[in-house]
């Protein structure tokens, strides 16, 4: 399958360094302490944050800091073939690396013995669900008022038809040669999530990291705009009330 045409465009018409459309919404759930919804290409991911709250079961409590518990879950209907509900081994691994990555940014030492629970529900999957999930999760953490160094941003690069490109879609992920999901803390440029599968030379790897890091700065702005949009609309509501 040919993934890049003569004009250098990808099957969905993107250039090598172009992201799919991303839309983030904040405060989309009522009960959760914080929440966010992200659409990233065909991905639709909903995130809720609860906590800091007393960690349970008790033996999981850390006397000097909070634990960040992420649960990545795919809906049965989110993929072509129905996925059997409940965590499989892939979901356990993804939950683990997302939790660890978010932990890098959260000031966990401020909340000993608690857990900060991050529930990530993939409603529709289109490659890159873990990075869409972690991007929305950081926004939901802010919405929950949890102190952090900065919002973690997820982004992926990969290799298709021998070329390094940004943000693989499903076909590109299936038929491409490599995928490199990453998450960074924009302010410090630290890498907090990094996985890779496929085949890349060292130079290609460097290009891929560079592409992702650049895109992450743009996605970081989208996160901030989404938060701002929520608080602006709250202000307008208040003004409306005062006007009455």
């Amino acid at each position: 399958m040919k993934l890049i045409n003569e004009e250098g465009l990808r099957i969905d018409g993107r250039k090598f360094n172009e992201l799919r459309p991303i839309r983030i919404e904040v405060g989309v759930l009522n009960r959760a302490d914080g929440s966010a919804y992200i659409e990233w290409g065909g991905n639709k991911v909903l995130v809720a944050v609860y906590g800091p709250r007393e960690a349970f079961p008790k033996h999981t409590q850390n006397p000097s800091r909070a634990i960040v518990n992420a649960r990545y879950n795919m809906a049965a209907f989110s993929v072509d073939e129905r996925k059997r509900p409940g965590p499989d081994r892939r979901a356990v691994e993804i939950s683990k690396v997302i939790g660890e990555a978010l932990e890098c940014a959260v000031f966990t030492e401020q909340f000993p013995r608690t857990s900060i629970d991050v529930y990530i529900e993939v409603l529709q999957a289109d490659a890159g669900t873990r990075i869409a999930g972690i991007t929305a999760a950081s926004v939901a953490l802010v919405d929950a008022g949890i102190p952090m160094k900065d919002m973690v941003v997820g982004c992926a690069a990969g290799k298709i038809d021998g070329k390094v490109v940004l943000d693989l879609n499903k076909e590109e992920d299936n038929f491409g040669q490599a995928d490199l999901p990453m998450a960074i803390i924009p302010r410090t440029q630290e890498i907090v999530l990094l996985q890779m599968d496929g085949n890349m030379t060292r130079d290609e790897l460097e290009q891929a990291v560079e592409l992702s890091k650049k895109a992450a700065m743009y996605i970081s702005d989208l996160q901030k705009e989404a938060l701002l949009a929520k608080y602006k609309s709250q202000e307008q509501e208040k003004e409306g009330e005062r006007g009455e």
Partner: protein
Amino acid sequence: MSAVSKSADEIVYGLKREYLEKICTEGSRIDGRKFDEMRPVIVNTNFVPRAQGSAEVRLGDSRVLVGIKIEQGEPFQDTPNSGILTTNAELLPMASPTFESGPPSEDAIELARVVDRGIRESKMIDLDKLVIKEGEKVWVVFIDMHILDYDGNLIDACSLGAVAALLEAKVPASKIGAEDFPLPINHVPITTTFAKIGSTMLADPNLEEEEVESARLSVATNENGDVVAMQKGMGGSITNEELFSAVDTSIKLGKDIRKRVLGK
């Protein structure tokens, strides 16, 4: 008294971490190794002749046993013309006081998946040559990894054990009236893991180093020096420089192990 009381364990942990970070800044490690030096490694193949392939690996004082079983099975619907590879890790309670019996822990699942990724993504085994009858019957390669003694860096010990065992594994085709044949091998991936302590990346961390690492990075490379899989672990971060210094060391160590230990 401070608001948060500390247990004796935590105090010892803090002291250990400080000490290991300090000696790293002075250029040394707790067991005297260089930053990019692995512990002595011994690979003992055909340890379990009843398996189709096996290898016992001692990496320093860590010890794992990998067995390969190859059986007939149905192919996955989306890959009817391809054999199946499946990887499982058992953190046996005998290996460490911190391992418990019961269903596989997060750590065991991650370990199995990281080892699997290195082998699968390198295309080590030519799975297309493991078809018995298209769409109906294929060979299933089971990699089972038993952790016998835990002194750190199970990812590298298990990866090496799995690769060594696969290299000598035979497909039991005599069971279906053909001749046994060696597993079709295309590549030899090697995975190397680093612990970040302070701002130093230490190759092949032992248990003491692993206990105080802030982040962990595993890099799998093939014989061309390409990177085929990576995994960052733990709640700490790494910088670009740390990432690429680990990648470079990994390429170098991979070459060495491939030649010195596996004779490839």
